[in-house]
């Protein structure tokens, strides 16, 4: 684990929650994976497994009043930003008690009260939404920030350049967090992306960082600096976090793909750089957590996930007529 980019005082109070959040994201998704493969979930799921350090390292700095936008691969951002595992899982199960009352599902989990402006099924859509949210911050003369999480594939959508332009020009408190997980669906990044993504932001002369996205402290350090700067009126920053998606693009992919798009050796190699395992090792090595404490944390998380999964499964299906009420504000569809 590299430590150079970290740049913060690593107290136990800061470090343990990072592990805790990463574990929560991971275990929730492992359960979703199992439930999906058991045929229990109505829709598909895109899992974040392997990328947890990015969401957690960034969101550790955020308040409820700060906003994020996320992607089709949005569970990790939702949990890391403080969303409820119960409400999220119930949503993915299509239940009334879901955070979006069963109307949105996996690709659209949102909790506006927590500043989670939503996962999004349209690749890169969050960029412009975040830009608008960041503009609202400047109108409010607030020290809030707005963070856009997006993938390397999304970085090929022109709205990246458009929002970089607006955010730079208007000095918006917007943090661009590009999670380069080496794939855009089934296309290796190098086959669809020219040059280094971070250079696209450098063209605007804003602060840019390229970090190891499997090193939660590296992410935490870079994000902390960017968010601090934005809160003080220093404008936008860009972070490219290099990571790897350990599961498929979507859980169902094996059922329809006729050929492989990556070597299992590559997956194994990255499994050896699992951000959670790396961070556990680090915490133990630094004497911050011992084996027993880690186990206790794991048990606590397991109980939360079990509770959330049961809550989701036991919930009532979404109200079939709700759609007519919520399409519009005080206007029936």
């Amino acid at each position: 684990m590299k430590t150079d980019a970290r740049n913060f005082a690593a107290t136990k109070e800061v470090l343990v929650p990072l592990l805790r959040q990463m574990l929560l994201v991971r275990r929730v998704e492992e359960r979703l994976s199992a439930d999906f493969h058991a045929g229990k979930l109505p829709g598909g799921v895109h899992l974040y497994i392997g990328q947890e350090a990015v969401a957690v390292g960034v969101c550790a700095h955020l308040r409820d009043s700060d906003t994020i936008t996320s992607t089709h691969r949005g569970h990790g951002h939702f949990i890391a930003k403080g969303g409820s595992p119960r409400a999220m899982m119930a949503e993915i199960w299509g239940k009334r008690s879901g955070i979006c009352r069963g109307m949105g599902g996996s690709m659209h989990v949102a909790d506006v009260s927590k500043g989670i402006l939503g996962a999004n099924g349209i690749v890169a859509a969050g960029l412009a939404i975040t830009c608008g949210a960041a503009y609202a911050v400047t109108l409010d003369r607030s020290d809030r920030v707005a963070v856009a999480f997006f993938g390397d594939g999304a970085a090929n959508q022109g709205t990246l350049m458009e929002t970089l332009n607006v955010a730079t020009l208007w000095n918006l408190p917007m943090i661009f967090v590009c999670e380069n997980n080496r794939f855009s669906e089934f296309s290796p990044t190098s086959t669809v992306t020219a040059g280094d993504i971070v250079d696209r932001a450098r063209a605007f002369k804003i602060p840019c960082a390229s970090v190891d996205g499997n090193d939660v402290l590296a992410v935490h350090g870079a994000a902390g600096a960017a968010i601090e700067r934005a809160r003080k009126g220093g404008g936008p920053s860009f972070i490219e976090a290099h990571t790897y998606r350990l599961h498929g693009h979507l859980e169902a992919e094996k059922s329809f793909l006729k050929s492989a798009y990556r070597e299992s050796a590559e997956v194994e190699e990255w499994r050896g750089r699992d951000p959670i395992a790396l961070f556990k090792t680090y915490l133990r090595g630094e004497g911050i957590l011992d084996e027993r404490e880690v186990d206790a944390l794991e048990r606590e998380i397991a109980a939360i996930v079990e509770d959330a999964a049961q809550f989701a499964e036991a919930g009532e299906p979404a109200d079939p007529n709700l759609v007519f009420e919520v399409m519009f504000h005080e206007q029936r569809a």
Partner: protein
Amino acid sequence: MAKKRYIQAINDALTEEMARDPKIILFGEDVEISMFGDTLGLLERFGPGRIRNTPICEATLTGMAVGAAASGYRVVLHMMFSNFIYTGFDAIANQMAKLRLMTGGQMSMPITILAGYGGGRSSAAQHSDTPHPLLMNLGGVNVVVPASPADAKGLLKTVLRGKNPTFFLEAGGRGAETAEVPDEDYTIPLGKVSVLRPGRDVTVVAIGTMVKHALAAIPELEAKGIDPEVIDIRTLVPLDEDGIIASVQKTGRLVVVDEARDRCSAASHICAVVADKAFSALKAPPKRVTVPNVAMPYAPASEKNVLPNPAKIAAAAAALVGR
């Protein structure tokens, strides 16, 4: 009452509502200098921040409207010409029209999109579209098409106080037309047609720019002894089905005049609704006077050839009555 230009009525509504509600902001390309005149003077009055020129990047502008609306602002986004709606269409069709449903009602989208529409000025195909049918089909956006200065002001005020994404489509090239506008603060509810001329023989429903032509067709119809009822639709979403049907129940005949292309036009939809719900009242087939399924040509006579006009309207209405 005072005579006001159409564009001035819009400008007045924006000015008054922005003064009333500090959460209203407005942005778009060159809104500061104001090409059409609708945003004139707003920068001086409300300052940069609330009024802001943007770069040319419609895909981002529509998305920014969503983000700012989700952050508690009422956003007015000026898209200039209707054709540029397509350039920013993703955040319209996939985000603002759907986010409230997708979030289970957590978000409202108080966004007003202004854009000029329509042909007749040799602006050619990329600056002459009338896009309301596409917007109507999205399901999640209101569509307002004011025809007169007074309606423009009253409807815009309602929209700016509402909380739903709304396209406020400005009748292209008609900004300079004047008519009486009430002095007092007033609003006009969405989803209520306006009967401009009561009549017994045939209902002529006109949309936006076409209202003027429908009114201009009256003398020719009267000369033939026909007594038309002319209705200004005012808003397409919500659509006042009852208002239209009530008229057709009386007249038994319907002509819908629409500057959109015919296929899947608002005219088609209104005719379908009437054929469904007022079937037994109909004495003759419901008729559409629309633009054929073509892009707008540049040359004046070519353009004129495809646009509705009073003569075409009068001919359609007269044929229904059998004169």
